[in-house]
């Protein structure tokens, strides 16, 4: 009886989690224009339509350029913040950690309004740099957290050993601590990239028609009319996400043997 409850609830929940995407994404290859089964036949024509339509490819390149910029800026901000915070006293550490992590808690619609108003007055609204900086602020907390985790997990004996061999503080930092924390920086960079690449709300407020990102274009498409091209974009976005997740796993598996 208890096993029935367990398996029943687990399988139902698992189906709810997986089935929507498994069912919907293959419709990108549907020959017909109705988004339902049975499919009319296998076709790549909707992919072709995406790649020949300027608006989707332009949005894709915008997203990519913005995500790269936001990743670099986010790693710089979050990485510096994490290494700096590690060197401060306990009380300051709590306050600064709260500050640097806080963009994760503030609802994105609120950050969106704040950015839209303030960036508008600074003349950054609609520009490439406006979006890069806004997304960097959203990605920096994730870089901060993963670098923090990485620095905290370091074996203090390694630093001590280097010191006993006569290495100066700065030498130890650059040649011992930082290389050991590299996995944290890499994971943080991937988090920052994905955060920017998938972000909708802030981009909705800041992007001009020329700097529209792929998620904003998809959001507009969903509100407008449901077409098979939308499923194609959704499929491509998920494939990019999965590729990044796989990259993360691969990087972590590279980092592991060094620790032991």
């Amino acid at each position: 009886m208890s096993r029935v409850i367990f398996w029943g609830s687990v399988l139902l929940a698992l189906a709810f989690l997986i089935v929507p995407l498994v069912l919907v994404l293959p419709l990108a290859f549907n020959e017909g224009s109705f988004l339902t089964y049975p499919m009319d036949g296998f076709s790549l024509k909707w992919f072709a339509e995406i790649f020949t339509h300027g608006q989707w490819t332009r949005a894709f390149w915008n997203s990519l350029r913005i995500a790269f910029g936001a990743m670099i800026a986010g790693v710089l901000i979050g990485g510096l913040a994490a290494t700096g915070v590690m060197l401060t006293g306990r009380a300051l550490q709590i306050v600064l950690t709260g500050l640097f992590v806080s963009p994760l808690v503030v609802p994105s619609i609120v950050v969106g309004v704040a950015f839209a108003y303030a960036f508008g007055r600074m003349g950054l609204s609609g520009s490439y740099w406006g979006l890069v900086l806004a997304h960097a602020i959203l990605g920096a907390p994730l870089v901060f957290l993963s670098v923090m985790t990485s620095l905290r997990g370091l074996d203090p004996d390694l630093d001590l050993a280097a010191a006993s061999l006569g290495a100066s503080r700065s030498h130890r930092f650059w040649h011992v601590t930082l290389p050991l924390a590299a996995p944290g920086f890499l994971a943080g960079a991937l988090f920052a990239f994905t955060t920017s690449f998938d972000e909708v709300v802030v981009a909705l407020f800041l992007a001009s028609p020329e700097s529209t990102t792929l998620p904003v274009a998809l959001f507009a498409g969903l509100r407008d009319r449901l077409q098979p091209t939308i499923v194609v974009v959704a499929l491509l976005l998920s494939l990019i996400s999965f590729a990044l997740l796989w990259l993360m796993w691969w990087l972590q598996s590279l980092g592991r043997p060094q620790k032991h």
Partner: protein
Amino acid sequence: MHASPRRPGGARLAALVLLVLPLAIYSFLYLMPIGSMVALSVDNGELGRSLVAFRDADRSDANARAAALLTDMRAMDAGTQGATARGLNQNLAGFRSLFLNTARKSGDIEPTMAGLVAFDPRWAEEQYWQVMERNTAPFTLRHFGQATGLVLDDNGRLTAGGDDIYVQIMWRTLVIAVQVMFVTLLISYPLAYAVANARPRFAAFVLVAVLLSFWTSILVRTTAWVILLQTSGLVNAFLLWTGAIAEPLQLIFNRFGAIVSMTHVLLPFAIIPMMNVMRTIPKSQADASRSLGAGPIETFLRVYFPQTIRGVAVAAGTVFILALGFYITPSLTGGPRDQMVSFYIAAFVKESLNWGMASALSVLLLGAVLVIVAIYGAARWAMARSGGRA
């Protein structure tokens, strides 16, 4: 953690050097925008800046008031005159033309009460002067009044009796967030349990499913639900095919669609914290409980579940906070009566360009989130102090 006790002197300088850039960027590009948004929510707009001489004039002296008003009018450029007239007209219909006509001729009018009345007899009516006196402060609670169903009385105090539409919307936001939180916890618990306790291969499969879902963009997952639930969508097609229904059901653009899709999107945020707590519970406890004669259900309810409450609480808080400010998913899958505060904030910014209301609602939403975070922080601190595991 480990290193702070043996870092004297130079560490402080190094910390300062490292922190300068992130602190500058956070202050300039994050704290300042949020601060200016908060200021905007109580900002009186052009009204609070353009009628400065009038604001300082002696209220009991009609001629001084009239002279100050004309001085202010002469000091304004055409744009400011228009904005001020618009602001006054929002309070009293017809003020716009009166103000603009007078402002245009403000150089020729004799700076006394009699001069103004001679130009336009409406200036003799006290109501126009009252509106200006009430609305020339640099700060206003007008937007918060509108958001909370209160109105400003003649003395500028908030009193009951306004339109309570935004109170209803905030209440609805709260109700939806609670509904989504409960459904999400109900579905996440067995999945987290499976990751922590099932056979390794199955546990790993569930974990991969959770992580893939977590890593897939929210918008993509919402897209899937829009396509599944639409009138000619997969769910309706399936139900029609089985003969369970004769007519397609309305599954989207209503509360059902909003809650189902929001739950699906938020599932991983609930599973991950619960899973982390469940993994720390030794399996031998269940064996011990069983060997002492407790049945599986009693073992779960009295031994296992109480230990997972901390994880459930973290999951509940995370999902609740995310649901409270959720925009993308409910705006695509909810109907007009299922839109949350975030939808109206976006509409104020994108459509009606009413920044005052957008920031007032944002400040209220941000306040609610910060209160919840503070409660969680306090609870964690209290638990750490009482010796509980933090």
